[in-house]
């Protein structure tokens, strides 16, 4: 019985870590995706400055996700990483290039355009790879005796390409609404202009995915379509968030588009979880199959409960230090 409870707590912690990562690294990857389309080079400087002080803290959540998964649900770690072998390599390469681009671009002069491309290309590849992971997760994994037994490119299908594009558009939307909040003048006007088309792209891709998913997996179909249950509240809320984004952009609100986009992500994410619950390595293994030993979950949990509040305090403090608008030709004070 105690094993049961701890595993649920860990599912909540990992779930929290993943959405923290998606929301936080999502907007700074989004800024990278939008980078080549910015009105001018000065605007690119400003865009980069809006995310520069916080991006590496955001990516630490990814490292925590990897280590936490190994600690609490090792089966997930040891099946999904081999299954996504090539995709993980592409994602990490993308993250490396965009990470160093932050640093080198400001020092470069003649080679600056190269770091522009490294930043945009790295962000785009990382975002696409993460979206494909979501698709691969919905598809499920071929396993034999608790180990991945499929091929190197099983994860790359028309369906996962679509989910990859979906997350790409989603991150771009997070990026554009972040820029609305953090910038002003011409750059902010540009961000307002691109938000509505991005929102439409996201909704169209999400709609196709939603229609397609029941055909990919029977369990998902039964859960959503055999009976109309309370879970239909989630897509309703997603649409409400989408409406809110559209309305607040129309009314030129500054903070609300970003908040509503986060809401759109959270409700979609919860929708994904209820589609697959309690399977963490579909179609075979549940949370409880994948869990590590009770004493290991307990040992880490005790430390985590003490340390994570402190980490969250740091993070909030950093965002508070760098609050407010970022102007052209101006960094942080």
């Amino acid at each position, binding site marked *: 019985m105690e094993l049961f409870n701890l595993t649920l707590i860990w599912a909540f912690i990992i779930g929290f870590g993943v959405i923290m990562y998606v929301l936080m690294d999502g907007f700074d990857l989004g800024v990278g995706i939008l980078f080549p389309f910015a009105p001018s080079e000065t605007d690119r400087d400003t865009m980069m400055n809006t995310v520069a002080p916080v991006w590496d803290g955001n990516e630490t959540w990814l490292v925590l996700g990897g280590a936490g998964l190994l600690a609490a649900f090792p089966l997930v770690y040891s099946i999904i990483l081999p299954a996504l072998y090539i995709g993980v390599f592409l994602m990490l390469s993308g993250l490396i290039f965009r990470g*160093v681009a932050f640093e080198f671009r400001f020092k470069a002069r003649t080679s600056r355009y190269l770091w522009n491309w490294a930043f945009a290309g790295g962000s785009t590849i990382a975002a696409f790879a993460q979206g494909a992971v979501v698709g691969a997760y919905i598809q499920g994994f071929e396993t034999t005796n608790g180990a991945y037994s499929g091929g190197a490119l099983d994860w790359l299908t028309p369906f996962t390409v679509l989910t990859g594009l979906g997350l790409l558009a989603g991150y771009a939307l997070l990026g554009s609404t972040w820029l609305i909040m953090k910038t002003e003048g011409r750059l902010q006007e540009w961000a307002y202009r691109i938000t509505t088309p991005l929102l439409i792209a996201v909704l169209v891709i999400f709609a196709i995915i939603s229609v397609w998913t029941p055909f990919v997996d029977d369990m998902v179909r039964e859960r959503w379509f055999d009976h109309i249950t309370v879970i239909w509240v989630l897509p309703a809320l997603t649409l409400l968030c989408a409406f809110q984004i559209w309305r607040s952009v129309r009314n030129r609100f500054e903070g609300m588009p970003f908040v509503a986009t986060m809401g759109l992500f959270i409700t979609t994410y919860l929708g994904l979880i209820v589609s697959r619950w309690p399977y963490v390595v579909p179609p075979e293994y549940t949370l409880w199959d994948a869990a590590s030993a009770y004493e290991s979950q307990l040992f880490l949990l005790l430390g985590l409960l003490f340390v994570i509040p402190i980490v969250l305090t740091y993070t909030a403090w950093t965002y508070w230090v760098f609050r407010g608008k970022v102007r052209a030709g101006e960094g942080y004070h």
Partner: protein
Amino acid sequence: MELDPLILSRIQFAFVVSFHAIFPVFSIGLASFIAVLEGLAFKTGNPLWEKLSSFWTKVFAVVFGMGVVSGIVMSFQFGTNWSNFSQASANFLGPMLSYEVITAFFLEAAFLGVLLFGRHKVPAGVHLFAAIMVAVGTFISSFWILSANSWMHTPAGVELRDGVFHVTSWSQAIFNPSFPYRFAHMVMASFLTGGFVVAGVSAWYLLRGREVEANRKALSMCLWMLLFLAPAQAVIGDFHGLNTMEHQPVKVAAMEGNWETSRNVPLLLFAIPDQENQTNRFEIGVPNLASFILTHEWDGEVPGLNEVAVEEQPPVAIVFWSFRVMVGLGLLMIAFALAGLVLRRKGAYYQKRWFLQGLRFMSITPFIAVIAGWFVTEIGRSPWLVYGMMNQAEALTPSLTGGMALFTLIGYVVVYGLVFSAGVYYLLRVLYVGLEDADEGEHESDRPARPLSAAHVPFEIERGSGDVNHARPVNEGGL
């Protein structure tokens, strides 16, 4: 030819971890040096300390940043290439790595920002506190990662049930038999790395007559530290070796090139180990010295490679020679540290050109020694991954093919090659520009508060500036 995913994965892991290791090993030593400089600045109010601290913090920012970027890759390597190992050891390694992230990585990230950009924005005491916290973070990080690594050498506090390790005692697993020695040896190596790099760079500035007063102070501090630490490292290394002989005798046999367990074993200075014929060619040795060093008795018994079957032996030649490289460089470090003491009379240590030139070249040696040391301990464990309990072949990802492994191996070599040559180039630029402009950066606030961004140094050498030593950072204004 059939591509072997095991060999390719081992090469890939060795490559990414070696490349990663050189950055933290330097930043651990440097973080403490900066904390000491900040402490001196705080206590004495002498602006020279602040100048030194500002300069070395810039170097730190670049090194730390590259360590972070290459470290993200590490946290996924276990899963992608060694999934059976991850699955089997997750009950212990998962919590270790997670504790490293939550107790060290977040601490370093938070306080590094204050250290880099907060000098004029927070009270001096808070700035000093930030410097200390960054240094503490680097130690906490090495604590967890070296505990995990040591456990793979001397597993304790676990039992293997159905192919999965279960922790029976956290204290025994964390403080496993080789951990105290490895931790002390590695921390010492980090201090030696920091010390020799700072000494080498200061010596180079002194040779060129740049910022003489500050660089003399830095050099003097380093030489005092090295005088105690370089010999201490030899003593700790000896204890570490004795511990290895107790728990991993075959590794010691490979280090000594000793094929048969015997008494009166000579210390080999040179030999070409011939694994096929289980013997050495061209041996040159000092009689009985290996017996004395390892057992502290002239006729003591030293374990030989014949204790285990041939297929359970590590590759002897690479372990044997890596060990000699490490020890040889260690002795050279001790020689320079002692020379520093002899030359201290009348300040000869900052005037003798041969000494300063020598220190310049010594700045690269700790990195080579550290990599060689890791080769000794890691390759010496082969074919085991968890010593005596799980071998490398069992640990490999079952679905991994040779082609996939080759693809990512080439990929990582290309990505790292591009990214790190740019990074090293930039680091050299920071050194060329030097201390003279150390304060300028603080007054412009046109750069994001991020590692690597701390130094306001243009990326390319100025066109037509000819002598790079006279290149100065151009004030880029608001760009």
